[in-house]
């Protein structure tokens, strides 16, 4: 990974201007805007516009089937307080994030450390662990649903050892945990690759210097490697929080949010309310809340990072 370097030729146009045709940089400004304008237009139309629109929609009673679109102020937000399924939904989202984020980060880090030390097998192992990342979420979810059902392969293999497994995805005590496990198994390869890239960036002389000073493996890991990795641990926590919010397809196909609302996370609930109950206004207000939750969590992470992220570039 090459470090991007701003070329001095371009950052100091005044000094070099005499070499170019007059008006070169003025033309560059116009052409530059022209170069980015398709993406800029798309960004305004498909990202900024929708973010503003969702705030506007959230203030309306909007039912697609009934054809209503009436301004009701904060009515949708008040309705959340009386929504009896919402506490379960929030709990499911929190449990999912609490399970997913630490597992994804720590297992990814462990896999990266192991792969980086596995000598000849490193390349092959990196490939193997990355395969689930590229496999479609649909195929991954369906095969796990197939294996985790009552008479599925998992219980089939357990029964060989005389263990009677539960109905993993229908059992209230197991369902959310299994959703976490299936998602983590798919994503480990991704966090592993991030940590592998990070490990490659650590100059080996630092570890060697520590060893010469008499540090053993454990000391080197806790006092040299891990502190140098903290920016990437931070990065992976932020990314994992965001992707824990994005696990829509998996929940849709694995449990449909059940049993009850036990595995219905907020994004899935938004989808249900909007596209199955057609209550777009209420779903929009939930999306607004979700938007702010993501922003607050991300901002909070950045605020906290100074406390524990050791090494800043």
């Amino acid at each position: 990974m090459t470090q991007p370097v701003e070329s001095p030729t371009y950052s100091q146009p005044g000094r070099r201007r005499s070499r170019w045709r007059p008006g070169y940089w003025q033309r560059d400004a116009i052409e530059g805007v022209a170069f980015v304008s398709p993406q800029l237009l798309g960004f305004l139309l498909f990202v900024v516009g929708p973010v503003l629109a969702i705030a506007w929609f959230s203030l309306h009673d909007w039912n697609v089937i009934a054809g209503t679109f009436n301004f009701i102020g904060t009515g949708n937000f008040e309705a959340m307080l009386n929504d009896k399924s919402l506490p379960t939904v929030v709990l499911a989202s929190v449990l999912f994030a609490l399970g997913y984020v630490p597992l994804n980060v720590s297992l990814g880090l462990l896999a990266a450390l192991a792969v980086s030390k596995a000598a000849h097998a490193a390349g092959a192992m990196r490939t193997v662990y990355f395969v689930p990342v590229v496999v479609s979420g649909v195929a991954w979810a369906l095969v796990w649903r197939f294996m985790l059902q009552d008479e599925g392969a998992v219980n089939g293999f357990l029964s060989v050892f005389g263990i009677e497994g539960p109905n993993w995805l229908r059992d209230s005590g197991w369902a959310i945990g299994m959703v976490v496990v299936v998602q983590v198994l798919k994503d480990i390869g991704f966090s592993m690759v991030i940590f592998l890239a990070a490990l490659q960036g650590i100059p080996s002389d630092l570890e060697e210097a520590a060893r010469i000073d008499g540090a053993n493996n454990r000391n080197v890991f806790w006092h040299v490697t891990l502190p140098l990795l903290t920016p990437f641990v931070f990065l992976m926590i932020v990314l994992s929080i965001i992707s824990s919010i994005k696990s829509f397809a998996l929940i849709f196909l694995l449990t449909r949010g059940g049993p009850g609302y036990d595995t219905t996370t907020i994004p899935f609930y938004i989808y249900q309310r909007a596209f199955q109950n057609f209550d777009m206004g209420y779903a929009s207000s939930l999306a607004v809340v979700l938007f702010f939750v993501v922003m607050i969590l991300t901002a909070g992470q950045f605020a906290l990072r100074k406390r524990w992220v050791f090494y800043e570039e």
Partner: protein
Amino acid sequence: MKSEPQVMRPRSRRRWSGIALTVILIIGAIPLLFPLWWLVTSAFKGLNEIFQYPPHLFPDELKWENFAKVFELQPFARQFLNSLYIAALNVIGTLVFSSLAGYAFARMRFPGRNVLFVLMLSALLVPLEVLIIPLYALMGELGWLGTHLPLIVLPVFGVDAVIGTFLMRQYFLSLPVELEDAGRIDGLSRFGIFRHIALPLARPALATVAILTFLTSWNAFLEPLVFVSGVPDLLTVPVAIPLYADAYGFPVWEVQMAASTLSILPVLIVFIIAQRYIIPGFARVGIAG
């Protein structure tokens, strides 16, 4: 210096720890690879064998008729083609517009360039699930619901485009600027420099963007679910596969697994051929955040 002997461990011990690590890694890989093995083998099993106790690791006989059923029960060939041409258009569109924007963000000087770039990057923090309702309304206004247009236009110009733009910008920044200076002295226009000097040099980045875009498009689920549901001929593969169900809505597993096998094959082939572009590409996308 005195601790030197402790540092240098005997070579054999180091080799053993390498072997031990490899064994642990292989065991750890079982839950990652077994599901794929199970997916592919179940695609060849008969209905009775699928729920056999104890489970069969290999199919008794290869039931190719599961694959025939994939094409009988739904217009799967059509759906496969839909996925393929939508992914192809996404790749071409993203390559064209992301490289243009990425080049401008890397090399050209226009007012607000850096602010704009950071703003666009922040779009990566907004989950698609938040945007899907207004996007649905917008597509409705444009009359694009029930067509493939949302699936073609949104990835090229929406949130996904930001990743491509970012990767292209970083790569252009890493190229030596002197070559472009030479082109300029020879009288090339900005577009000429981009087209004839920068773009050919950026082939590795273009390959990474192409592959990432293909994977995202090929595996997309929520967008086709929302924008083209209900019309079998319009569906893409990911939304079609869960629809292999019996009259009671229960999945016809062996057919779902056969269709899933067909859907992951192209991806696995591309992955195995091009993994040296794919894995670093993912790493760079991650570090983008």
